[in-house]
Each structure stands twice: as structure tokens, then as C-alpha cells.
């Protein structure tokens, strides 16, 4: 059914810390703002919660919306288009019925967050293997991923995941960091405020007697129709297995190698990307497309604190660019710079090394959706494919439901491309039923 959509100065896409702060900041300067989120409650992944258990910080952020932000929940954005003098945001409203709705706005703030970066390994499609973020999301919904859980991957996110699983009653059989363990301490020193937080996780791990090992990776998951064991190996500096193989019994594995920003909407609009997998922005979080702003993980993964600050910067810049002229806030800019530098140093401290390729066997699935094994990727390369796109065209990795969100990083690496330089082109950012697409939505020019 068509629905008449109102016009706004600013449409904010994503109700996590960046979007919430951005919407509030813009509304405070007098812009009419609509905040769209796919979920049933605001907060994004970071502040995911059960009804009635709203985190305090989220409550505070949500208070900022009182000054005239219209919130549209359960609105999934599948396409954004330039529609002079602004933009059309095409949504699917409702989680089951999917009514097509279009929202028009003079400016856009893209705050669509990130998902886990997954790497393939034998058995990674067994039920019980989840991304670290997935296990965390489940827990925030009140459900443990398993009773005996292994946490693995790389990066500082593994610690809060392990600590919260243990606190909730799971037996965490170990945390296996593929990089060296001394990296986090060095990175954290640059921002002493985080030391206390790190110490808290450390205490949690000690208290629950959870082993935290560096240069260790889960190189295989085993089981019949669900996970029963993982194989952990010592890995060298490049992450190639280097002996010390151990089988660990578990019914869940939470594995994450960092995060992948969700850039498809920015790509649809033609926003310039880089450096790395991120929307390129200036100090005001303006993208290369006039009227389009980006904040949070879409400008480079940096966590909730940075996302919130970036949202405020972007909301104020949008207001200024639309002639509302908020007073410059040098303190805010300095804070944003400092947090951005910290986020960069943290990302640099946890690179993904390419020795993970040595974990693959010929029959290891690279693409979960289309069930493409590593051997077929190699066949495509032998047939003359020289990049991720031609491997996809010949062997189908990335052609399925998830559109390469899970295998894109791996396929780029296996095709000889730098994953950071592969543009995630998804003209349909969310699957849309043909009936909904055909029926059309209300749009104002």
C-alpha cells in the first residue's frame, strides 16, 4: 500500500549511538528530523536490549530525541536515491508485512553500523558456530549461545564477549586471539580511560578461570549436525597453523575477526570510500556527496563512544549546511579527532593476517549461501578469473542471500584483491518481495 510520507530536513538511517546522537544534535538546531531503524527498539547492536531493560546511556540518548525527532522503527531501508532537492529513502515497514514506504529529506545521515568480519574455516557452517557479535546479540536478548563456549578471533571485542558470557553463566572454555597478546595493552595505553575497562574484563576472565591465549586460532569446527569440538592451533605471525593442535569440547563457538561497515547505502549514492573499508568524510562527517553525512562504524570501525561523538558532529554539520548555523564547538572536534586516532590505532593493532588461507581444505565452504567450496574458487581462478567479481561470476560466491556480506572479505583475498578496496555494490540493500517492489510507495518530489 502506498503511504504518503512527510518531508524532513534530515533523515537519519540507523538508530544506534551515531544515529541517535546525530538526530538529537540536528533537531536541537531546529532541523526537522526523521530517524529510521530496522529494529523494534532503538539502540542498534551496541544498546540491544530486551523490552523494559533499556540501558541508562541509551535512555539518555533517547531523551535527546524529544525535541522533535520522528522515530520510525521497523523501517528497513533497501534503497536511497538522489531526488532533487534532496533524497528519497525507500523503506520496508514492518517485519512481516513489509509495506513499502518512501521518506523524503533534504539531507541524509548514514549511520548503518557494521557486522562481524567472518573468516572461513572447515566446519564454520555447523550450527553452534556463531559470530562473536551474534553470540553477544543473543545474550542481550537473554539467551546463551551454548553451555560451554569457545571465544576466538582477533581484537578487543573478544574480551567483553567472553566476560559477559561467563557472567551470564556459560562456561567459557577459552579465548583464543590469533594475534599476539601484548598488542591490546599497547593500544589501550593511548587512551588511559579504557584501561579500567580492560582491567575489568581481565578480572572477569581471571575470576571465571578463563584461559586467554595469544597466537592461537580455531582452525576447524567439528560435529555431525551441530558443533561438538573445535580444533585450536598455535599460529605463526602470519596466522598459519604452527603446531600445538588441541581439540576442545564445546557446544558453541563465538568467533569474530573484527567488523565490516555496512556501506551499501553510501555506495548507492556514489559516496567516495576510503581509506580502508569506510565512507570517506571530512571533519564535519560530510561525505563526497553534498547533503550526505556518515557517522559511526560506516566511517571506520571505532566503537560506541566515537560513534556518538561522530553523530553529534554530523548532526551539527548538517544543520550548519542547511543554514541553521550552530556555533562551532572546538571541544567536540578535538574529542572526535582524539577518539578517531585511538580507533585507528586499535584497528592497526589487530590486523587480519592472510595465513588463514592455510586453514582451508578443498571442500571448506567459502560461501555459505551458495555452498561454494574453496576448490571451486580455485577452479574459477584457473579459468581466468582475476578478481573478486569474476570469481563470483564463474563460481557464485557472494551471489546468494547474504550478497557476500559473510564471504566478501575472504573471496576478495582469495581472488588476489585487497578487501579494503572492493566496493560493496548492492543496489538492493535489503531483500524486497516482488509484490512490495511492484506496488510502489508514496514519494514526494
Amino acid at each position, binding site marked *: 500500500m502506498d503511504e504518503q510520507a512527510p518531508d524532513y530536513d534530515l533523515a537519519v538511517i540507523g538508530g544506534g549511538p551515531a544515529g541517535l546522537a546525530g538526530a538529537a544534535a540536528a533537531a536541537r538546531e531546529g532541523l526537522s528530523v526523521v530517524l529510521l531503524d*530496522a529494529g523494534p527498539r532503538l539502540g542498534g547492536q551496541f544498546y540491544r536490549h530486551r523490552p523494559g531493560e533499556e540501558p541508562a546511556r541509551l535512555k539518555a540518548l533517547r531523551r535527546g530525541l524529544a525535541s522533535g525527532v520522528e522515530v520510525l522503527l521497523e523501517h528497513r531501508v533497501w534503497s536511497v536515491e538522489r531526488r532533487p532537492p534532496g533524497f528519497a529513502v525507500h523503506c520496508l515497514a514492518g517485519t512481516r508485512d513489509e509495506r513499502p514506504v518512501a521518506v523524503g529529506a533534504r539531507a541524509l545521515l548514514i549511520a548503518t553500523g557494521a*557486522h562481524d568480519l567472518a573468516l572461513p574455516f572447515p566446519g564454520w557452517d555447523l*550450527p553452534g558456530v*556463531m*559470530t562473536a557479535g551474534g553470540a553477544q*546479540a543473543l545474550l542481550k536478548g*537473554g539467551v546463551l549461545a551454548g553451555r560451554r563456549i569457545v571465544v576466538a578471533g582477533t581484537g578487543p571485542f573478544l574480551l567483553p564477549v567472553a566476560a559477559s558470557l561467563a557472567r551470564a553463566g556459560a562456561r567459557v572454555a577459552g579465548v583464543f586471539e590469533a594475534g599476539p597478546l601484548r598488542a591490546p595493552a599497547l593500544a589501550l595505553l593511548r587512551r588511559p580511560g579504557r584501561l579500567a575497562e580492560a582491567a575489568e574484563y581481565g578480572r572477569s576472565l581471571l575470576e571465571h578461570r578463563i584461559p586467554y591465549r595469544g597466537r592461537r586460532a580455531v582452525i576447524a569446527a567439528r560435529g555431525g549436525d551441530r558443533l561438538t569440538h573445535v580444533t585450536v592451533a598455535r599460529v605463526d605471525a602470519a596466522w598459519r597453523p604452527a603446531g600445538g593442535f588441541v581439540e576442545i569440547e564445546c557446544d558453541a563457538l563465538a568467533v569474530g575477526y573484527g567488523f565490516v561497515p555496512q556501506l551499501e547505502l553510501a555506495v548507492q549514492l556514489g559516496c567516495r570510500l576510503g581509506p580502508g573499508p569506510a565512507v570517506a568524510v571530512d571533519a564535519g562527517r560530510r561525505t563526497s556527496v553534498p547533503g550526505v553525512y556518515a557517522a559511526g562504524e560506516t566511517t571506520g570501525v571505532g566503537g560506541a563512544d566515537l560513534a556518538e561523538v561522530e553523530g553529534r558532529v554530523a548532526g551539527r554539520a548538517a544543520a550548519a549546511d542547511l543554514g541553521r548555523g550552530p556555533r562551532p564547538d572546538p571541544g567536540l572536534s578535538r574529542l572526535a579527532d582524539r577518539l578517531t586516532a585511538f580507533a585507528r590505532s586499535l584497528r592497526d593493532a589487530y590486523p587480519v593476517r592472510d595465513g588463514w588461507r592455510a586453514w582451508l581444505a578443498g571442500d571448506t565452504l567459502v560461501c555459505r549461501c551458495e*555452498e561454494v567450496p574453496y576448490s571451486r574458487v580455485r577452479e574459477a581462478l584457473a579459468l581466468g578469473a582475476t578478481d573478486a567479481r569474476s570469481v563470483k561470476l564463474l563460481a557464485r560466491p557472494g551471489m546468494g542471500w*547474504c550478497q557476500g556480506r559473510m564471504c566478501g572479505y575472504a573471496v576478495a583475498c582469495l581472488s588476489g584483491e585487497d578487501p579494503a578496496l572492493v566496493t560493496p555494490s548492492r543496489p538492493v540493500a535489503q531483500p524486497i518481495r516482488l509484490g512490495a517492489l511492484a506496488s510502489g510507495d508514496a514519494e514526494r518530489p
Partner: protein
Amino acid sequence: MTAEFEIAFDGTPVPAASGQTIGAALHAAGIVSWRTTRYAGRPRGLFCGIGACFDCLVTVNGRPSLRACLTEARAGDDVTSGPDVIRAEGSPDG
């Protein structure tokens, strides 16, 4: 968590709470897979948990291809497992 209502999974009652996703309710009930892949028939359940991987697709009240990790349970939901796609042999399945 106190169960507030029930949903049915392939006819079996599963407790669920308001605000809980169908994926979380199934997982909490010890059901970790509810779909099989179309070529090798491999079992799949929750993987990314946040709507990005589409592994957890499920049919709810006859509505196919919903993400169990995003779809909140409602009392009386009739959840059925897949597959709703071709098998490797190419023969239609249901």
C-alpha cells in the same frame, strides 16, 4: 527468562517471551538449526545473529523467508523449518 507465551516449531510448542526473536526462542529451547541448504542439505540456524547472513531463514504462519534473528515472536506463531528451495537433484521439495 519467564516464558510468556508459546509458539509452535514444526508443531512442537516452544516457549517464548515478548520482545524475543523467534531465533532466540528456538535456540533457548535447544533447537540450533531449522533449515537445510539446497545443495548439500546442511543444517543451519543462527550465525551472524543480526540479520546480515540470512542463514536463519524460516517460514512463519506461511510467510516464507523471514530472518528468525530479526523477527520477534508473537503468541501462536506457527514456525516451520525449510527447505523451501530446490534440492541438488533438482526435484521440487514441498
